[in-house]
């Protein structure tokens, strides 16, 4: 049983990176929450330049020796990136599309959570009051 659980855990939590082009991978996919970790673990080189296409030109968003970067706080839309290593030619471009959950869905979960919390508090308060004064003797 334990082995099965551990195998399931391994399979389900070790999410396979999504590949975009030959160089960049999406190591942590939070596109519906406005964040993403882009990684380039398999790219040869010591210094990397990651650029984003915005306003008709490429802008540097990271330059250095790390092999990943986490973007967050992204609004809905399409984003285009490219990576170059050790001053070489940029690798293939890829698009990242961010689409947040609809607010109606978000408030549905929020409302359900609020109701459940209220029910839990009432359950605990009423239940605890019933047993006040038990002084160690189950009633």
């Amino acid at each position, binding site marked *: 049983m334990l082995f099965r659980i551990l195998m399931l*855990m391994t399979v389900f939590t070790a999410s396979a990176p999504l590949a975009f082009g030959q160089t960049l991978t999406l190591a942590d996919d939070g596109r519906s929450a406005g964040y993403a970790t882009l990684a380039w673990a398999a790219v040869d080189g010591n210094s990397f330049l990651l650029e984003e296409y915005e306003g008709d030109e490429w802008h540097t968003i990271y330059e250095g020796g790390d092999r990943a970067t986490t973007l967050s706080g992204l609004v809905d839309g399409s984003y285009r990136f490219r990576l170059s290593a050790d001053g070489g030619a940029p690798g293939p471009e890829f698009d990242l599309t961010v689409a947040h959950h609809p607010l109606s869905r978000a408030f549905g979960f929020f409302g359900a959570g609020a109701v459940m919390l209220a*029910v839990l508090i009432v359950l605990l308060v009423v239940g605890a009051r019933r047993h006040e004064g038990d002084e160690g003797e189950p009633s």
Partner: protein
Amino acid sequence: MNANAVLPAHDAWIIIGAFSVLWVLIGWWLGRNNNSLEDYMLAGRKVGMGFAVATAMATWVTSNTTMTAPQLTYQLGIWGMVGYSLGAVGLLLFAPLARRIRTLMPQGYTSGDFIRLRYGRTAWRVFLAISFFYSLGWLISLGMAGGLLINALSGIPYAYGMTVIVAICTLYTVFGGLKAVIGTDFIQTILILVGVVALGVLVVDKVGFDTIHATLSEERPELLNMLLPASIMFLFNNLFFGVGEIFHSNVWWSRAFAFAPGVGFRAYLTAGVFWLPIPIVAGLIALAAPALGINVPSPDMVAPLVAGKLFGLFGGILVFVVVFAALASSLDSVLAATSDLIVKDIYKGHIRPAASDRELRTAAVWIILGLGAMTWALSLMRLATLGSLLHFTGAFVASTIWPIAVGLLYKRGNGVHATAAMVLGSAGGLAAYFTIGFYVAALVSAGISMAVMALAFLQRPSFDWANLTAARQSSTGDMS
């Protein structure tokens, strides 16, 4: 992954060495008078208010608080930070249950004891599977956090740092049992509180709210969006995840059993109030990252990276000490509580029903060592990021909230209700995890579990509290 390391490896090894010696010595010293199984597993059942608050707080301030709270803030913004702090609700709501547990089962040892006597063996086994899976997930996340922290700050390879932290915590838990765990928790609480507050103040002083706000508005506007959908969904999810963790886990039950009579309610309430602001302060550190132009290769490393960049060697040491204390205070607690669960519910409950206290004490030592080894091996594999690993277990633990609460306070509900609530809740939570996101798994699980347990209120009260009497009257703690 460690281009921003600010702590020389030599200095890091000195700090690790000093604290390791300190924790092991304290563990040995506190545990030298452990004469019985009850001393070893439950600190003699007479823990006073000061130590009780400190251990509840230190255990709940984990590496997840000091590293995952900043991660979630970095990913989900303001609501991610607030949502994480709602984990305090679990401690607050457990306060009345801790009093009830101590009253109902003054001779109890584990949460498994209660489930078996209240709901029967099928529910007990489902509960044990959930609880063990969760404990393992927590242990792995702690081991991983240790390795990541040391690597981020000093460049020491992940495997080395993780190995040292897991080994040291295992060692002093073996020496001292719950007394060592609670004693070290007290010192670790002070280190954590002072360190976290100092870091928060220094970040605001060095960077400033205006700069942080301006940069976020310009570069990452959604982090400030109070209507960010995923964050709104996450808010109550994290609350119910925390409630599920605390309600079911033997970490908290063993403390309820170990606290002196009358202490549990006040201790959990006080710990919850003091814990509430800690994730907010820790999260604030992450929001300074964009303003400082820091690259964050892995979001669970954001706090150490910010502290290192901002305060150099001093910041690195401060974060190192805080997270090392937070890690140790939780790792030892989970090791001890999970060992209790395995000793009493699996070894004695399923394998050796006639085992003596002496035999159980020996088994407890070997089980702690085995758990430490298992944690090490699984942490070495780095299965996922801390956040995703942690929230994966949320789908399971949130399903236990209602069976525990109803079972402790009401005579309604039986083993069928409890088993169905846990199984269906976990399945629904897992489905939500994979189809929507980690930020709804616990919420969906708790919702389904609640619907199932609500059926219990359609039936007449049937449970007789006297069924727990045998356990209450046993001098050996055997739960027959």
